[in-house]
């Protein structure tokens, strides 16, 4: 195929509507006779509900209905958990609390009213009596806590899992040094700028329920909500309209989605719920939440002999869709981009009285990368080696791919030293070190941090995923010659309407503007899996390529018939099939195929193709990030003075979109490293409950990001793409922390837990305890 668009910085086709405010997010859609829903949520972390009195609320102006757990628990199935693990305890998870509340923000009652103001007013009129119970908050102590959240389980352990290969005891025993460190991955809030929201409409005659939801996975949601509501899946339509960011937080099936559907069915009127930001911080999934202990063995020359990671993973009070699976992704990626003969991860996953954790951008891999990249720096410090050198000594060479890790993965392709060298050159690493030495003499506190990461993307083979790891695509050339692409990978800001159009335009030789990429509506688009796990282009894009190939084959046969030639003799270029001076355009072929007056007898009319792509393996993007930081001796303030990132996500469809993904990912990492933390107090109150206390990075906090790429194609798919959605979030955090720890190494610091707030650093510098 001619690459007119692929590889180019094509401006996004979705932008004109968005920059004019003409896109439609859930709350922008209004239906006649629509009602509004507001939730009463628990203000206790753990309590028994002794009574609920909704009578006053029911009589409030505008109120149409009030529902409590008693009303719905036998009518709506459980909020689903899709992760399967041996001996996993799955708590009964109802859409509204019944006898107990388990976390601050746990929904207790839903008020339905004629407008959002009336719904909100009525919430204050519901009287709930609670008997407060002790809250389980500390992650490390949860397993042995005498308070058991789900009593029938007997303890707070959701599961225990040991994973990894190699003889870890022998590996650590053979080491010249074993470095140990406790390490905390704090809880984070994904904070998609658009909070969640659901609009539900039920047509009693047709018995059709339609849900508009701000979701990353319309099809999976349709299946799950149909099960929860006990309605035929083919009578449920889910539409993900414009989705204002997800970062994993909308890769889920939430209580509110099923409940709104049920309410619409009860009342036979459209109902809408739009999450407030306070609700979003309380009751949309959280990310990270691990406390782990590293043991890493090394030889005097820097060779790593083995790694053990014993981790307590905070599930929260319930499992959401993938909650228990997230730590397993950490386990898979612990080898980083190094040859480590023995790795063991021992997970103790615990229930606590907090919102569930789940997939937040990176989903378990940032934790793994942080563990191994911090560990490599600690090894370097122990051996008094340059951290770059330690990394180099443990890289597999490009020839060693596919490279098998002791975590059971086969890395598809890689040139780790290539990305590292390019980043070192861009940053002028040796000069940085010289400058650092000089600055230290002047009393400055400057650090240089490096992270060389690899991540797991293109999720993924179905055998390794809970709900299918494939993706689908349909391509249709309409009678007028316009091209429709239907993708099951429903985007929420990634720009697939553009990148998939680029792929299709090149393949069919048509103008980009003649292509419409349609997604997010289960009634229009064939079943698909969704956009998450940096999979959309690698898996969904590949399905599209396959569909385009099939469509082209069909078109070739139609064209050959029209041109009265053999299909093999046809050339297809710039949208034209030609042979012997005769030619026909794909648009003409499409029309002929639809008119069907002159088509081969053995061919069906119409011009379309649908294909599903099942990847054989994951892909493994990688790269190197280098960060220079300076700490203000007086205040502990950190300034990131240089940021260099070289990422390799395989082949690139649109460099502009790739850079955008990297930028955004890095900035979320800066957030985790320096600013963000969800804090529950020891009673389980979420005290960072608004954006006044939970610090999302602002423009002025961010340094200029110097980006470049290397390009190592993936052999896993014909496009050679690997995926880029999470790379920035995975690679950046340890580079920032390594930089700051490096800056503080003269003060005897070898490790610090995030977020690295000024007060913490000031105390170290000034030894103020």
């Amino acid at each position, binding site marked *: 195929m001619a690459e007119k668009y692929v590889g180019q910085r094509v401006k996004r086709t979705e932008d004109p509507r968005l920059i004019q405010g003409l896109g439609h997010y859930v709350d922008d859609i209004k239906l006649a006779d629509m009602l509004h829903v507001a939730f009463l949520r628990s203000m206790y972390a753990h309590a028994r509900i002794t009574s609920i009195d909704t009578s006053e609320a029911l009589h409030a102006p505008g109120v149409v209905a009030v529902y409590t757990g008693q009303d719905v628990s036998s009518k709506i199935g459980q909020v689903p958990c899709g992760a399967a693990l041996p001996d996993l305890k799955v708590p009964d998870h109802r859409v509204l609390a019944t006898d107990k509340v388990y976390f601050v923000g746990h929904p207790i009652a839903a008020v339905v009213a004629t407008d959002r103001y009336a719904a909100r007013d009525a919430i204050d009129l519901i009287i709930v009596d609670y008997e407060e119970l002790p809250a389980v908050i500390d992650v490390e102590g949860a397993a042995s806590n005498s308070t058991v959240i789900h009593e029938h389980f007997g303890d707070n352990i959701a599961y225990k899992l040991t994973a990894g290969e190699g003889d870890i005891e022998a590996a650590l025993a053979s080491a010249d040094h074993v470095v140990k460190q406790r390490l905390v991955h704090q809880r984070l809030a994904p904070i998609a700028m658009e909070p969640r929201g659901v609009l539900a409409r039920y047509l009693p005659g047709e018995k059709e329920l339609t849900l508009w939801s701000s979701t990353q996975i319309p099809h999976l949601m349709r299946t799950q909500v149909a099960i929860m509501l006990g309605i035929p899946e083919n009578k449920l339509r889910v539409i993900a309209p414009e989705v204002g960011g997800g970062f994993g937080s909308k890769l889920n099936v939430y209580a509110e989605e099923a409940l709104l559907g049920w309410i619409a069915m009860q009342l036979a009127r459209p109902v809408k719920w739009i999450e407030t930001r306070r609700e979003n911080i309380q009751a949309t999934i959280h990310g990270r939440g691990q406390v782990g202990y590293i043991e890493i063995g090394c030889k005097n020359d820097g060779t790593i002999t083995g790694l053990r990671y014993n981790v307590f993973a905070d599930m929260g009070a319930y499992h959401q869709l993938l909650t228990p699976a997230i730590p397993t992704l950490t386990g898979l990626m612990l080898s980083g981009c190094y040859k480590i003969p023995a790795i063991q991860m021992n997970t103790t996953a615990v229930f606590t009285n907090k919102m569930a954790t789940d997939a937040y951008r990176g989903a378990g891999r940032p934790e793994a990368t942080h563990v191994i990249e911090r560990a490599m720096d600690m090894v370097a410090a122990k051996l008094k080696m340059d951290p770059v050198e330690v990394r180099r000594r443990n890289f597999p060479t490009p020839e060693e791919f596919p490279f098998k890790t002791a975590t059971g993965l086969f890395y598809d392709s890689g040139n780790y030293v290539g990305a590292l060298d390019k980043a070192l050159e861009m940053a002028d690493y040796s000069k940085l070190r010289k400058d650092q030495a000089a600055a230290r003499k002047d009393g400055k506190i400057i650090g240089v941090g490096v992270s060389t990461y690899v991540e797991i993307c293109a999720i993924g083979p179905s055998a390794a995923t809970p709900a299918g790891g494939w993706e689908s695509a349909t391509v249709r050339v309409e009678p007028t010659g316009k091209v429709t692409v239907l993708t099951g990978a429903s985007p929420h800001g990634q720009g697939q309407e553009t990148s998939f159009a680029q792929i299709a335009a090149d393949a069919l030789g048509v103008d980009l503007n003649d292509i419409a990429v349609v997604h997010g509506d289960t009634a229009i688009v064939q079943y698909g899996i969704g956009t998450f796990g940096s999979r959309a282009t690698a898996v969904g894009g590949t399905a599209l390529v396959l569909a385009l190939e099939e469509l082209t084959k069909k078109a070739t046969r139609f064209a050959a018939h029209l041109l009265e030639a053999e299909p093999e003799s046809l050339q297809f270029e710039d949208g034209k099939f030609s042979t012997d001076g005769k030619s026909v355009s794909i648009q003409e072929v499409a029309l002929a195929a639809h008119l069907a007056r002159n088509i081969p007898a053995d061919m069906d009319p119409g011009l379309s193709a649908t294909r599903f792509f099942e990847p054989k393996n994951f892909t493994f993007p990688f790269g190197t990030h280098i960060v220079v930081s300076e700490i203000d001796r007086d*205040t502990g303030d950190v300034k990131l003075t240089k940021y260099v990132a070289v990422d390799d996500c395989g082949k690139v469809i649109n460099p502009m979109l790739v850079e955008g993904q990297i930028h955004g990912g890095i900035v979320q990492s800066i957030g985790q490293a320096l600013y963000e933390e969800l804090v529950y107090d020891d009673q389980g109150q979420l005290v960072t409950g608004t954006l006044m206390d939970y610090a999302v990075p602002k423009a002025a*906090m961010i340094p200029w990001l110097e980006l470049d790429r290397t390009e190592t194609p993936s052999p896993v798919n014909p496009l050679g793409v690997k995926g880029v959605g999470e790379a920035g979030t995975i690679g950046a955090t340890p580079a920032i922390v390594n930089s700051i720890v490096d800056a503080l190494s003269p003060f005897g610091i070898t490790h610090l837990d995030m977020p690295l707030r000024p007060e913490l650093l000031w105390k170290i510098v*000034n030894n103020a305890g």
Partner: protein
Amino acid sequence: MIPAQFDYIAPTTLDEAVALLSQHADDAKVLAGGHSLIPAMKLRLAQPQLLVDIGRIKGLSYIREEGGQIRIGAMTTHYQIESSARLREICPLLPEAAGQIGDVQVRNKGTIGGSLAHSDPAADWPAAALALDAELRAVSSKGERGIKAADFFVDLFTTALEQGEILSEIRIPIPKARTGQAYLKAAQPASGFAVVGVAVSLVRDAAGKCEAAAVGITGVASKAYRAAAVEKALAGASLDEKMIAAAAAHATDGIDANGDLYASAQYRKHLAAVYARRAITAASR
């Protein structure tokens, strides 16, 4: 987040406004710009029954010079002060402090009077008002009175304004020649509120020594305060690095500092000294 119901009146004269306030006593609340009150109402932490919007009263938004004073109407927005070329010339502390409040949108709508009357312990204006020895004019149905900034801030969200009083004007003595000023702030990264904010206004004598200094500090304690010990140490001192540092070290003498998640009391006290030193240094340039 949606406020509870309330009634709303937008009087067009100050007399009308104070009459409404005295009539509705405890149930009424003054709406100035609304950037402190409306968020609290949306969280339903504030549920006034009546809002008296003073935004439609003509003649409460101005910056003028009169009687040796700068007079600023209570409804003057932070941005109006930030962008005043005249103030930058005669009293740069005002625009400098204004420009560090919240963000652009907040500065466009929030008012100096609203902020001072709210007396948030981490607001920027109280520090500046203290360092500038401002007099705050309060109007009620009983008449008008002046309250010195030093007496105005009573405690957390508590001012010397009495029931029925509206803050109408801020009067600031026009700084003398050879006055140096600065406002420096450590901002909380999420909210933008001052973890510590230090406002300094100092007058130098012909020889360059500090004749008198006024230092207002916000963010540290339950209310903004004048750092008397710093001022005393600066008075008559030569403004060299060592002297400034020694004076700034007294920034929290006798002050009961508060801590929160982001910054402990101990750290705030330390930051106060650092920012005092920096602000004094900047003001003495």
